[in-house]
């Protein structure tokens, strides 16, 4: 069975490198993007099984990306985990309403993050392109 592919979106190259290492060590394939526009393009091209998304991005911030994803039939089914330095009190609800599956504030606990990734990708999780189970 092919390894699940995760798209990492963050404008901090150091964070991308560290997370990529950690995710690879946990048997995930990883592809990255550093701004909103590149994120959408990568989602369309790579069709990842899951997206980890920062909010403070150039060329279209996290919310713009979430919006574009939701409005695309092909991409709306991909679970998105928001990983952001922003305050959850003001942003968690907004992100979840915009379609995110979960919100983590940086620095996130590695085990908790990996757990949510695993759960979101679980056996019942959809492949990109199909609708949620109803």
């Amino acid at each position: 069975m092919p390894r699940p592919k995760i798209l990492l979106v963050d404008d901090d190259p150091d964070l991308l490198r560290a997370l990529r290492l950690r995710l690879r060590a946990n048997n995930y394939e990883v592809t990255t993007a550093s701004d909103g526009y590149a994120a959408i393009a990568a989602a369309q091209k790579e069709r990842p099984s899951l997206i980890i998304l920062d909010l403070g991005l150039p060329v279209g911030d996290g919310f713009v990306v979430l919006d574009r994803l939701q409005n695309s039939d092909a991409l709306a089914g991909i679970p998105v985990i928001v990983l952001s330095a922003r305050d959850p009190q003001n942003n968690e609800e907004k992100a979840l309403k915009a379609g995110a599956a979960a919100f983590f504030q940086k620095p996130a606990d590695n085990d908790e993050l990996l757990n949510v990734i695993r759960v979101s990708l679980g056996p019942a999780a959809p492949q990109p392109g199909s609708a949620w189970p109803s």
Partner: protein
Amino acid sequence: MDRQTTQILLIEDNPGDADLVRLRLVEGKSPVNVNCVNRLSDGLAALSKQTPAVVLLDLNLPDSHGAETFRRVMEHAPNVPVVVLSGQDDEALAIKAVHQGVQDYLIKGNISSRQLERAIRYAVERQGLLRALDMAQKQQLEFKNQFLSHVSHELRTPLTCIHQYVTLILDGLAGPVVPEQSDHLKTVLRSVNQLHAMIRDLLEATRAESGKMRVEPRCISLRELLQQAVTMLRPTADGKKIGLEVGLDQRLPLVHADPSRVLEVLINLLDNAIKFTPQDGSVVVKACLVEADPGYVFISVSDSGRGIGPEAKAQIFERLYQDPDAIDNSRSGLGLGLFICREIVRLHQGRIWVSSEPGQGSTFTFTLPIYSLAKLLAPVVTHEDRLRPAFVLVRIELAPLSSLPRGNWKDTWRQCLEILRHCVYLDKDLVLPPMGTSATSETLFVVASTDLQGSGAMTMRIREQLERLGNLKGKCMLTVTAVLIELPPHNSGADLEQQVQNVADRVTQMIMTNMERNHLGAGKSTQKSKR
């Protein structure tokens, strides 16, 4: 004063005095427009209609006397300067008025037009300055809080980087690590966690100060929370060989409080207690009821540390206060912990205080309101001093589908609670605060003042609103049922307070039975419709 006409409101009931003042005003150099009324009520009405530049006020009017008069004027129009016109014998009162916010006073029978003009001009200028000062202060506070918010956000990025790479190496993902290296890295990680705690505290304290801290009270059991806090802090206590005990009253009632916030307070207090207690000491947590204050549960954390002196005691709950002799090697070292605790307790309508003497240890105590269903129900189940005729208990159960990540679930049911609150009649129905500390599935209850027939329409409305606005499709299963609340036959004979209590007791009983039944998975009560 500029060339524009100054609008003056003169509230004076003595026609002779009024005429004199009016004469002096008109004699003056600047154009004025005087509106004279002779009762306070007329004066207040005039203030509502048009805002004058200044109010000239006699304190003894037919419908108001003395201090009451200027208090009401200032309350009604806080931004309009007031100059009191007082009689010879009232000077003391006039001075008191100035202390309480009136701009100036003049003694009748002795006023020249120049004096009057000057008094008015100064009063207007002073008021303007006060307003500008107030606005500037508010702006500064807002700016400071935004700044702190921004700073704490910015600090997270480099902190995250350090955290990521240290854990990467520690977890062996960058090659093998010898024990000595691992030790050093763990030391770094401890500092990272401390920094993280400081940033969190900074943001929390800022929120508390700008009134943006929110608590979401539920109906919870303290026993669980206390156990949780103690379990979390036990390793730290063991490290210093400090005994950590819990003492709970036999039957502690449920409290109406936010479980994660209360946990925060407990952890803070316990952490401090352990920090300030030497090796082999002891820390005791207690929760009990106190006869003198029946609506609250008292929770205390006592330690056998070195105690707190009177100076420190007075300031210990203030922001950034730190004991100069403390050795800090655990949590945040910013000194914000107790400030945040105080805010959290305050938002729960509780109190927090410390009792301590140097050399004799310290006890921090805080109170939380007891969950009283009767108190919450009273305004809703009674009308014009009588109990309403019929009640129905509506049960709304939300069960998440498949393995929805926790974050999404919390938001979903929280949204449902909001929607539910909006689809009931606030003066007749009560949405009960949620129960318990965790939520794998959530059951909400509404006590509605209606009969079974009316409840049909209500359950339909609730279901429709939740499904539509709550965006539940594909996320969770919704079940809405309603059961008539049967009261004991003698209920109408009791006094109103007892009747309300009986309703509360019956509802509690029904909910407990319902919860137990669900736990055991037995039976289905009234008809259910699922989607």
